[in-house]
């Protein structure tokens, strides 16, 4: 490599080259609108969210309870046998304190994404959601959390019908 080639192609540009108009470029925006079909299993999941509970799927062959529900079991490729109503409580499997939004804007107060293992699902089976009503310093793996729901008349059958999960102590409602 270094024996044969002294020069490598590629011309680096800086932000300044754009701002100062040193190079030409074409700027455009694409607008893309979609309406995604929910499918059978996720449709049931969303309907349950609208009713205020979490829905899982159960495979009798693999004896697994998964969330979100699905029509086919990945492990045995048989149809999932049944839907199961799960608790809206769970345990933080992992989390982050994120100071950047999805479109790379800096924020002062971190977002608290987490993977939450849902009670009633098989071990390590959870969903991604956010944590709230908690000091970021206090968040820890193993923390018990409960869903905070939108009021029933505001629910629309979406994952955002759960606002976030907040910590609770066993025995508290």
């Amino acid at each position: 490599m270094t024996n044969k080639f002294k020069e490598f192609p590629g011309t680096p540009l800086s932000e300044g080259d754009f701002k100062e108009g040193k190079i030409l470029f074409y700027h455009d925006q694409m607008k893309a609108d979609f309406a995604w079909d929910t499918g059978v299993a996720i449709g049931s999941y969303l309907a349950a969210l609208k009713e205020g509970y979490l829905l899982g799927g159960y495979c009798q062959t693999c004896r697994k309870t998964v969330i979100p529900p699905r029509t086919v079991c990945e492990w045995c490729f048989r149809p999932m046998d049944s839907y199961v109503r799960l608790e809206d409580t769970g345990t933080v499997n992992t989390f982050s304190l994120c100071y950047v939004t999805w479109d790379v804007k800096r924020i002062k107060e971190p977002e608290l994404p987490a993977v939450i293992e849902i009670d009633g699902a098989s071990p390590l089976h959870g969903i991604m959601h956010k944590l709230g009503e908690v000091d970021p310093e206090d968040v820890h793996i193993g923390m018990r959390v409960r869903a905070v729901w939108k009021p029933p008349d505001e629910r629309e059958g979406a994952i955002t019908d759960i606002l976030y999960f907040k910590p609770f102590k066993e025995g508290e409602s």
Partner: protein
Amino acid sequence: MAMRKVAVVGAGMTKFVRRAQETGKELAWHASRMALESCEMTLDDIEAVCLGTAPDSFDGVHMKAEYLSDGAGAWGKPFMRSYVGGGTGVFTPIQGWYHVASGLFDAVLVVCEEKMSSYYPHGQAAFMTIFDHTTERPLKPNLLWIFAMEMNRYMHTYGISKKDIAQVAVKNKRNAADHPCALLGDPEITVEDVLNSEVLAWPVNRLDVSPVSDGAVALVLAAEHVAKRITDKPVWIQGVGWNLDTAYWTNRELAYPRYVEYAARMAYEMAGIKEPRKEIHIVEPYDPFDYKECHHLEGLLLADRGQAPQLLADGVTLRDGAMPVCPSGGLLGVGNPIAAAGLMKVAELYWQLRGEAGARQVPGQPKRGLAQAWGDLMQVGTVIILGTNP
């Protein structure tokens, strides 16, 4: 299986830069031309072209393979694009390998290109589309989330500190200082620099992450009878493997990448490797984040679970250690133009095994190396093993 032997006989690459003036086609052409010139071949000698490039959403160009095809020398030839997310850069040479091993073609050009800078203002937002549109995207997820959460789970499971992991970024950015194409080489960087860089998504700081970049890399692969006419030092593809885990990434253990293990076992079996820790001399695991190097070394069975940071603390994975890891400088140091970054790792093995890596050359005449990449929604593992013996 009756398969033919396949060798890498040429390699070329562009600089990896934050933003290149050249278009993707132009970058692909530069790398391809260099790879052909390095083994004194022309496009007339090439019978098929394999192209790797990441999501169309980065470029805002539909059917990127066709868009890039002239720069990749594909006109009038059998041409195919492969795409397995971040795993693409190691999967594309695997595709090239089976094109030749099968007996269909004697000489194949493998080209990987990425131009991440077009997406405005930052390519990161294009990653939104990898999440499930119904169950995850309404939460406005950020790509950093899943890495930060996987890193946290890995640290928690094995009791590893951020400082242990920051050493990986330091090693790779120092190694990259010797790479003429590197974007972020820095011989002076320290662990404190990494720990004190701004927090993006705890536990991930800015210097724990590789930068988005533009660049291209190309290889020439040839069947044995052709390879031996072209060069005295062909570098043989001894084993390949790839594997996929569930797309329901919140339904599995994040602390251990079992799909990497399955891919590695497939490649080890093909290469006849029984004791990988003794038989692999150089490793180029995928390192878009510093913890991923550790995670992947464990999945590759080259470190015990949770013990990869200790290998670095003991000096084993330094360039002059017993098992150098990312002597190129990796994605953390050279840069991360996704598909091109993976193929850069394979090119590094080619140069290292030929003794042509210049200031980056690992001592002791290495005979065998492994490159690995990883991608999709943290679920695909791709592995290739190169060696000086067929």
